């Protein structure tokens, strides 16, 4: 018995073939999906955990911000205050990366004008997305 692998070692060896991270993660999420389907309590806890408020640095927030989603799911005050927390350059970057304005459109505009444009256009796009 001395050189025989234990059960734990055998499992580790079996799993060691998953050198590809994507394959390993796919398996993990498959297991999680199956468990969530059969375990509503866990599903509820996971969904609640996902609903936590997450804060980002403004530069990162500018990169992650989906203005259409923000305009479509929150009110105008929240939208404006979210953008107001960003710098002028960051708002311009948000407008361009969200395809809400071209460089021609935003040339020479001040922060309040940019936020007005962002809200008006993001809301219009959000309304277009609605069925």
């Amino acid at each position, binding site marked *: 018995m001395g050189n025989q692998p234990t059960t734990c070692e055998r499992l580790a060896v079996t799993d060691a073939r998953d050198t590809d991270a994507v394959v390993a993660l796919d398996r993990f999420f498959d297991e999680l999906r199956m468990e969530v389907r059969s375990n509503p309590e866990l599903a509820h806890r996971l969904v609640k955990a996902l609903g936590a408020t997450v804060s980002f640095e403004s530069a990162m927030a500018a990169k992650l911000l989906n203005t259409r989603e923000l305009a479509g799911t929150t009110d105008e005050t929240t939208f404006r205050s979210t953008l107001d927390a960003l710098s002028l350059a960051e708002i311009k970057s948000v407008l361009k990366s969200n395809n809400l304005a*071209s*460089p021609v*459109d935003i040339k020479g505009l001040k922060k309040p004008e940019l936020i007005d444009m962002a809200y008006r*256009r993001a809301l*219009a796009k959000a309304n277009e997305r609605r069925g």
Partner: protein
Amino acid sequence: MSATIAAIANLKGGVGKSTTTVMLADSLAYFFGLNILVIDLDAQANSSQMLLTEQGVHAASEQGKGAHHLLGQFLDGQKAAAAPFITPNAVSIEELRAAEMKSERLGWISALTAHPQLRMDEMSLEEEWYSRTGTPTTLSESLARHFENGFADLLPLYDVILLDCPPHLSPLSRAGLALADVFVLPTLADSVSGWGTKQFITWVQDNLRADLKDRSFSVITRFRNTGYARQMRTELQNITLKDVWFGPTMPESIDVLRAMERPAQDSYDTFRGKYGKMKNDVRRLADEFIEFLVSRRWETSPQRVRD
């Protein structure tokens, strides 16, 4: 010069007809200073939205503009006149707008927009027509005559009329195809698209234009540079669409997806800004389409007005 009517068509949907229509409109107006009319006959209104935004399409409809009004004239037995239903400004390129502001117009785009109502009206028309023992062929022929009369006053005003046809052979589509001088055939480099293109060519050759291949300009769109796609492109060029003029192969690009979503009705961008890394591909599209037109229809090549 009377406008050349180009139908952008394919039996299959999703091959890039509307995107090709808009790229041709922008590039012909920008590089060659041509006056372009885009007629959107597809009730999905994709090229209309790409040019004017969804809000713009609804606004046009509320102002009494759109191709469905032309169809309404047919339904009501009225004389055809398309001009009142045209949105005169469908420009999103800053250089075109700036030239216009200085009264130095060098290239312009107008649009006869589509609207979902177009398909509703077409269905009503079909029901009425067929209940009176009419046939799809007599309906499409009557519609083609109506459109021909409706567009007659427009021909001297434009250099190129781009007809964005729906992806099937509905009466509207057949009427549009019957009016076309030349055909632009966008296709994807895959077997299903090749099949749709082949069916389309066979039908049009048998029913409308025996010399279709001589009048056609094909564009492979959304090309992903893989071994399979290269093989399919070769087969399209050498077998399925043999004897058809091939324009440039347009690569799949996020820049095109972005370019086709105008941020707002009052948004303008430079040509370079709008098309980004695709700028040279779109320029080649215009260059080769002009070369095709000169070899088939035009006596001289228009001068390039911008680089």
